[in-house]
């Protein structure tokens, strides 16, 4: 940030033209100085001042009444009472009463104080001098000298060994704090690569909690499934469903463009991860005519007829598909876990 290459006279410091104009006595733009103080009505008319006084007192009184109203509402209204207030609608009587009384109580104190200041306190403008923030040179010189003296007395410059070991110690000591953070969580390992899905796990309908049969799933319908054995009351339900949630649709096999998708489906029933590959929103805005799925969070759009390829938006790769089949009893089952990690991409995903 040096200005060494620029001649001093070109710097704006040297250009302040306002200052030298002021020297001319006949400068038409010269500062005429603070305008004379004009009186307000209240300054010259005692009746007006009295009116102001009454207004202020009225506001303060209103505030007191509102506070009493607040306490009264707190006592009087049951917490679940509903009232109809036009044009807002059906709202909580207590919330409305408490909020309005509190609002009035506070607002009136403020309005009273400001009205007082505006009409009754002196409104004469006063000019205050500013003082340079920079210290005068002699102060600066003194401070620098003191500092040098102190540094010299500590001998920090001369005894390099002390200085260097001290810096070393100070640099190392925060490491303890960093190390302590290690147990905030486990290492990633391959946790993000596995879900509860495994060969033979039935696809359980999230609505009915019953395993699904192929005949349940009609073309154009949308069903969400979870792996057999995962129950809402399980302590790790949230973490497991965050990876295992499944979206099931049925597409006419002729409409499926992607070969692998067709192979992994069962009679056109395809099971895709419900978790968006962008940042993990549950993606399930299924358009049954276009077979597009839209994410409600960031609008990534996937084509379910084409291996759930991304056709719009910020997602970087297709939705993982779960390979499914039918077991001996005729229920839909998984033929293994997802072959790639579900959800948002990460560095080790590969």
């Amino acid at each position, binding site marked *: 940030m040096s200005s060494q290459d620029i001649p001093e006279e070109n710097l704006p410091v040297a250009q302040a033209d306002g200052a030298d104009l002021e020297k001319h006595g006949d400068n038409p733009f010269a500062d005429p100085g603070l305008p004379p103080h004009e009186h307000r009505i209240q300054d010259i008319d005692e009746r007006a001042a009295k009116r102001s006084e009454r207004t202020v007192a009225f506001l303060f009184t209103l505030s007191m009444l509102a506070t009493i109203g607040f306490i009264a509402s707190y006592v009087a209204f049951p917490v679940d009472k509903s009232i109809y207030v036009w044009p807002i609608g059906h709202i909580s009587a207590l919330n409305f009463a408490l909020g309005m009384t509190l609002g009035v109580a506070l607002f009136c104190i403020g309005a009273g104080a400001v009205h007082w200041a505006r009409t009754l306190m002196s409104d004469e403008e006063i000019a205050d001098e500013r003082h340079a923030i920079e210290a005068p040179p002699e102060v600066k010189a003194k401070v620098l000298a003191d500092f040098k003296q102190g540094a010299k007395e500590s001998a920090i410059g001369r005894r390099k060994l002390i200085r260097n070991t001290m810096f070393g110690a100070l640099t190392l000591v925060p490491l303890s704090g960093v190390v302590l953070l290690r147990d905030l969580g486990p290492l990633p390992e391959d946790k993000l690569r596995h879900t509860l899905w495994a060969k033979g796990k039935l696809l359980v309908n999230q*609505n*009915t909690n019953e395993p699904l049969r192929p005949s349940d799933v009609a073309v154009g319908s949308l069903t969400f499934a979870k792996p057999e054995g995962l129950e809402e009351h399980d302590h790790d339900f949230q973490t497991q469903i965050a990876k295992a949630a499944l979206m099931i649709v049925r597409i006419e096999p002729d409409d499926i463009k992607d070969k692998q998708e067709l192979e992994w489906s069962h009679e056109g029933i395809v099971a895709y991860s419900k978790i968006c590959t962008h940042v993990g929103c549950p993606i399930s805005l*299924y358009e049954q005519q276009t077979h597009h799925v839209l994410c409600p969070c960031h609008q990534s759009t996937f084509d379910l007829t084409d291996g759930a390829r991304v056709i719009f938006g910020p997602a970087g790769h297709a939705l993982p598909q779960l390979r499914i089949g039918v077991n001996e009893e005729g229920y839909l089952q998984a033929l293994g876990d997802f072959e790639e990690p579900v959800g948002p991409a990460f560095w080790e995903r590969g």
Partner: protein
Amino acid sequence: MKKLSARRRHPLAAVVVLILALAATGGLYAAFAPADKAQAEETSQSLAIEEGKKLYSVGCASCHGTGGQGTTDGPSLVGVGSAAVDFQVGTGRMPAQQPGAQVPKKKNIYTQAQIDQLAAYIASLGAGPVTPTDKQYSPEGADIAKGGELFRTNCAQCHNFTGEGGALTKGKFAPSLEGVSPKHIYEAMQTGPQNMPSFPDTTMPEKQKKDIIAYLDAVNGEKTESPGGLKLGGLGPVSEGLFAWIFGLGALIAVAVWVAARTAKAKKS
């Protein structure tokens, strides 16, 4: 397409539709009203189908083909069932006015009796979901909380937490569910109109549809309470943010202007 859909939403469009609708209703009524009474007495299914066919050939055949087989302008109606007809015609979506990203709901131009006749005719073309009875969709006795859970799993992703509607791709949208009758909601879940997927009884039993309808009635019905005050459209942080800027900060700045303004000076005389 853009222009068309913009024009379709022109305020006058509604008036035009209304006039056309009234003219059509009047005409149809004049033509069929005497027959209606006769039918009511006979209550003959075949007659209803017959009348439905007539209505069909006037209002629907140009797009869906003379026998409901479908054309390039409209899908086949074979096997869609009476529920689909009742929903599409009952919410005014059909007959469609103009092509566009999506056929919006508008004023229905048929009487319920005529819709039933149309539905009977379409149902005769091939089996499909049947128009539900009052007992099936009425929310009485349903489990509201379970309905809420089902709604958040199956519906909220498109229709928003409380059914305010939301955007789909390329100008399509999931409509608001406010003020939609329980029957039509039930039919929509059953049949999956337009781009909405269906939720057939095999994966979402009748009872659960009722639960969902009951939940919607509880959180977005006429009597729904919004304890905190104005609902702000039920749209979440965007409308809250706009409100905070315009009315919150706006009011505070107005107050600040008053606080800092100069008090009126006495007039010099």
